[in-house]
């Protein structure tokens, strides 16, 4: 089986990689590009731990083939902070103790960032339904939702 050559932009940087047709974008991120921040927890799109944005659209990277991202823009958890400046969401997660084991945290941060870019003033219900594809087994979601709402408020300048 021969590999495909793919070029794409990951977190603003041009990348090139080789992948088999079966490799998912998640496989490529973790095994070819050494970006292990996106996690594989179910391989079926049911947990959201592998969340990235693809051309600005929130997706599960385990449900995208590596071959499909030719010429596309991908943003992962590793691109959420800018230099040494944390995104308000990242800071609020720390402030609110919104993570325990932390395995779901990258996916949730990517998903929450995508929400706030679309809807800067979501209600609690809107936050919960947007994040329903991101499982967390440790926190019961309470502090996560509070952190997202608090980050949204800060980003609005309230």
């Amino acid at each position, binding site marked *: 089986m021969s590999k495909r050559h793919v070029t794409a932009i990951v977190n603003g940087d041009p990348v090139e990689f080789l992948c088999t047709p079966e490799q998912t974008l998640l496989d490529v991120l*973790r095994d070819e590009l050494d970006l292990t921040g996106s996690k594989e927890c179910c391989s*079926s799109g049911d947990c959201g731990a592998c969340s990235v944005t693809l051309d600005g659209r929130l997706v599960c990277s385990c449900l995208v083939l590596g071959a499909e991202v030719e010429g596309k823009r991908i943003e992962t958890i590793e691109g959420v902070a800018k230099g040494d400046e944390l995104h308000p969401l990242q800071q609020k997660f720390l402030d609110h103790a919104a993570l325990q084991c932390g395995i779901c*945290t990258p996916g949730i941060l990517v998903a929450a960032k995508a929400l706030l870019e679309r809807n800067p003033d979501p209600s609690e219900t809107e936050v919960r339904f947007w994040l329903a594809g991101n499982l967390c*087994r440790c926190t019961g979601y*309470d502090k996560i939702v509070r952190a997202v709402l608090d980050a949204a408020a800060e980003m609005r300048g309230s």
Partner: protein
Amino acid sequence: MATNPIDVERARSKQLRWVGTRGPRPDGIDKVTGRARYGADFNLPGMLVGRVLRSPHAHARIRSIDISKATALPGVKAIVTRDDFKDMPSEFVPAGEMMVNYRDIVRNVMAREKALYEGHAVAAVAATSPSIAREALRLIKVDYEVLPHVITAAEAMRPDAPLLHEDMITMGVEPAPTKASNVAKRVEFKTGDVKAGFAKADVIVERSFTTKPVHQGYLEPHACLANVNEAGQAELWCTTQGHFVVRSHCAKLLEMELSQIRVVATEIGGGFGGKTVVYLEPVALALSRKSKRPVKMVMSRDEVFKASGPTSGAHMTIKIGARKDGTITAGEAELAYEAGAFQGSPIQPGCMCAFAPYELENAHVVGYDVVSNRPKVAAYRAPGAPISEYAVEAVIDEIAQKLGLDPIEMRLKNAAKAGTRALYGPKFGPIGLVETLEAAKKHPHYSTPLGPNQGRGVASGFWFNIGGESCATINVNEDGSVTLMIGTPDIGGSRASMALMAAETLGIDVSHVRTLIVDTDSIGYTFLTGGSRVTFATGMATVDAAKDAIRQLCARAAKLWEVPEDQVVWDNGFAKRTGENAANVAPMSLAELAAKAGKTGGPISGHAEINAQGAGPTFGTHVVDVEVDEATGRVDIKRYTVIQDAGKAVHPGYVEGQYQGGAAQGVGWALNEEYVYGADGRLQNAGFLDYRMPVTSDLPMIDTVIVEVPNPAHPYGVRGVGETPIVPPMAAIANAVSRAIGSRMFELPMSPPKVLKAVQARKANGG
């Protein structure tokens, strides 16, 4: 090390600078940026991919395994089967809060005579790519003799049931049975005279309950990377709750000396008890040893469900008698817990905890540990207790309802207090059950009016918590910063709590303390993270290590001041002179003393190696409001409050997190989580689509109240908090649903078809 009463007093009087604050978490930045490395995030050059061949049958004799074609496939570097693991004689050892038997462990890790559940490991390969590994598994020929299977305890206990272990004679029965069965053990706890107790009762309720197996549901699958060199020295990175326990098990199974294997605990993506045992680790080591290359193994999500231990399903009968005024006169329980393919369900703690929140003169509990053809159960957050306490709390609620008593008042009437003797023996010291019940009564939630089709449920819960072996080393660096090394993996933020306790004891700013979880070569034996023990036991070791460092710092100050050591005390980060002319002598800070350490005798390092005693039990009370759609049986959680004793909340944010997380798992257990088997004994819902854990939109905000009744055995009064939160939710929700629909529920999960059926039955009866 004896507890200093001054510390306990300080804890009570709240003159604390760090303990009890909500500071940032030391490992937090790495976890919000994706830097933190979990079990599957480690790689080594030349690494092979390991994959397991698993039995498709629930019960089968393994006649032969032919690996010849697979071995010949180019790219396959090693294959292991039962022939590569030495058989182990029966030997029980603790693993967390449960006991495991090496004879069973070696068989669970790699099947020997039989495959005992669908998903049971039968062989494993290490190959140069995932697709070659997959192809190699296809080429392994296993000759199975398929046998009839049993799934539930009820099926397994029938006299004609097929036997999993032909030599299993029930322990704990006098005289011992002559015939083998699937009942591994019978346990019994008794006090007083239940017959006399029931005779005094004005009302007696007897109910039977069933629960289904549920999985701990950690998001991160089991994963490890093993690297064995030609001399047989091994390194192992794995996601685990206890890397020292992993080392023990692997050394035993691979017949290696403990000093020859170094285990690194990676960050762990959830455990809840399920990562206190080994599955892939001995296999990866065996493959690496055979191939002389590093081998990485990661379970897929369906393997996690099929081949790692959920907790027991159970069948229970509870009988409670009470007087008109709500005083319980007698309690009786018969519990049968499913152990999975090998003995060792948490039936013992289940029996011990069933009536634990109450002061009972007359109680009798009998429990059975039953094997059946499903994965071997592993610990799940307060193992055994959520199941039995669910049933008891539901019956207590029914009695309260029958007597027209407020459910909190009825519990207060019978509540265990300091001095109450538990059914399993010891007398309780200071405990916080009454405080949680009083707080529940006063909480605004309890007086919030209910809407149509809504019901409110209350339940209390108990867990013992454990102490155990923990070590801590505090290296005082030359610049006055401090490195704290401990051996308990951090599941929920414990690094933060350890740093707070170290800073508090040393009297320095917590930002100068760095906490590391080190590998098995770098610190003394430390028991696993579990049993709600880390803040208590590793915290105790941390405080002891800090005090050891303080002793040395004071000794160095004494040397520098040329005074006897008894004229130096440590106060809030400084060595101070006592005695003559003390006022004229400037105190010396930790940093100053650290800078002079080399000149005063050498580097300063405090350490402690303890077996922490005196873990205080933790009680909690939950209040939950549900709304039921009577046309469909859907249950929505409208309001949830967790009130629990923490002894002393070192980092309140992470204590609240434990309360909320346990409650959320309880919601799933109560409403939708269960293992669904087909008639063929195969698991039908081995993924997150159909194994239905709560999602964000399923839950409201979960209010928490931290009650603090300090545990006198811990320097800061700490009690473990991690497990109790999962004990009350199922009963609280069952009681809420029962009251909302006017009909009692006796089965978990209370999925919509069951609730709808209960509503329809009530309507048919004119309700």
